[in-house]
């Protein structure tokens, strides 16, 4: 036990004396959460739009007022001719132009329909789509007000209600994803690098010649990262609660247990990587390409799995991160208990056992 403590102490010296690993350990989680929370967002807010009003009557004015009254848009420019549209788009600030046809009010009253063109800058297709949906919604509402007195025979009024993330805050979607990435990065990449480093330096040989048992060496190398990963998970959850006001609906205890399970599976992957790579570079490349990319692309954290082609959907099943994302989304956003996520948990447990068994088998006790 005393040997073990000495070993862990040494491991912490390595970590705290290497600025790069310190940055990855503590800078990355905070930077990522901040990035995803503040900068990368699906919401729109104060989008600059321009108005091209050919009719300038009471109706168009009412619509414009309604739009500018919303917090989503601010009317930044008023233009007078069609040819200006391209010019202002090229400047880049304006994201949408509303083009009211001539005699808008008159057409609406006499012919019961008038045309309003919504032109959006689709260089960013997601934003363009969101903008046009928001404007449509405002127009719908205005129409309803106009038709208040008129009884339509049949009318379907869809009412969309977003559950679990009522405010549609994208940070709610990103926190579970970022947590998954960070835990994977710290646990798998950092351990595989730190084990291969000992191989590269030749100190692994010295350790194996010492009375330390091979499994003690590995547990000693891995233990600090379990500890640091847990700290990271706590930091991420704290940031999301206190800075982004994202409540954790479910049990924190369950969240902690599931996170530890995921950390252990990632560590086993890290050990596995270190057994097949001879240098730190190789370990890093394998971790990045073999683990990080699938986690980012196929875990369902950014791209919904249900809209992927079937082969990718099938592949996504073998990625532990997919199951972990489902589990922590359930706990954090829906507040579900184990009875709803036991299947995913079981899959994750199975994968963890498999990876541990494989890495123990692969781990060469005697350096050949």
């Amino acid at each position: 036990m005393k040997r073990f403590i000495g070993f862990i102490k040494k491991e912490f010296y390595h970590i705290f004396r290497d600025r790069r690993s310190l940055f990855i350990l503590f800078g990355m989680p905070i930077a990522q959460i901040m990035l995803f929370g503040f900068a990368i967002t699906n919401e729109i807010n104060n989008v600059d739009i321009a108005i091209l009003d050919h009719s300038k009557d009471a109706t168009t004015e009412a619509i414009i007022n309604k739009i500018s009254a919303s917090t989503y848009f601010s009317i930044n420019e008023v233009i007078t001719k069609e040819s200006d549209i391209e010019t202002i788009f090229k400047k880049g600030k304006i994201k949408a132009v509303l083009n009211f046809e001539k005699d808008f009010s008159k057409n609406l009253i006499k012919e019961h329909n008038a045309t309003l063109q919504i032109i959006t800058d689709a260089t960013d297709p997601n934003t363009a789509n969101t903008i046009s949906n928001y404007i449509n919604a405002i127009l719908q509402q205005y129409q309803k007000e106009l038709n208040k007195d008129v009884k339509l025979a049949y009318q379907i009024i869809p009412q969309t209600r977003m559950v679990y993330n009522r405010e549609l805050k994208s940070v709610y979607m990103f926190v579970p994803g970022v947590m998954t990435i960070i835990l994977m990065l710290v646990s798998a990449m950092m351990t595989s690098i730190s084990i291969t480093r000992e191989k590269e330096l030749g100190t692994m040989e010295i350790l194996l010649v010492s009375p330390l048992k091979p499994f003690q060496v590995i547990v000693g190398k891995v233990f600090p990262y379990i500890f640091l990963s847990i700290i990271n998970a706590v930091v991420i959850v704290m940031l999301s609660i206190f800075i982004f006001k994202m409540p954790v609906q479910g049990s924190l205890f369950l969240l902690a247990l599931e996170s530890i399970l995921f950390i252990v599976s990632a560590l086993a992957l890290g050990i596995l990587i270190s057994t097949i790579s001879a240098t730190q570079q190789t370990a890093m490349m394998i971790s990045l390409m073999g683990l990080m990319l699938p986690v980012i692309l196929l875990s369902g954290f950014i791209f919904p799995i249900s809209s992927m082609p079937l082969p990718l959907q099938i592949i996504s099943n073998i990625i532990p991160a997919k199951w972990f994302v489902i589990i922590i989304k359930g706990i954090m956003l829906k507040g579900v208990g184990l009875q709803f996520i036991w299947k995913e948990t079981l899959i994750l447990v199975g994968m963890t056992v498999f990876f541990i068994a494989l890495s123990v088998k692969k781990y060469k006790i005697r350096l050949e």
Partner: protein
Amino acid sequence: MNKNKVIQVEELTKMFGDFAAVNAITFNVEKGEIFGFLGANGAGKTTAMKMLIGISKPTSGKAAVAGYDVFTNAEDIKKSIGYMSQKFALYDDLTVKENITFFGGIYGLSRKQIKEKSKVLIEELGLENVANKLVGALPLGWKQKLSFSVALLHDPKIVFLDEPTGGVDPITRRQFWEMIYKAAHNGTTVFVTTHYMDEAEYCDRVSIMVNGKIEALNTPKKLKEYFKVDNMNDVFLKLARE
């Protein structure tokens, strides 16, 4: 078992597929001896050494190190030996003292023992001024000497040195050999591989491996007489050319 024979090797063989990296070697090393283990690159000396220090399992043959069988008691062997590899193997990002504490710790020395030993060691090597500096900042020669002292920290019966003086200047090599003599004088058996034939002259006995076999084993003096040459270099060349 003869108590004075701390390493006993009989027909020890290591096969990699059909290739015999070590082919039925037989030799003994006596207590307090400086035993030179020579051979060209690829002759099989590192493989042979790895079997003796318990990190590679022999294919066949017999071997006992410090009285323990390499097949069954590899873990006991590890407690009785010190090892210094050809790659410099202390931690660059730990200080001199931290390295000593760490390696003392994994060999199971108590805190008090570590404290006493590191004090003596640092004084002997004249490292008082750099004791709290990172090892990475030390010149290679100092590191090498420190590495050797660390390998001796737990008073092993036998110390295995794998090309310990590679890339070191002649003066440091000289000092290094003085340390080896001192260790041998104190009763530690030294098993050393080297490329430097002048170093082979410092050994009590040398064995020369060629293609997995020990082709010669005697004192440097007798080997020179036998091959009718003036120095070990020529002995080596004669053997390797055959």
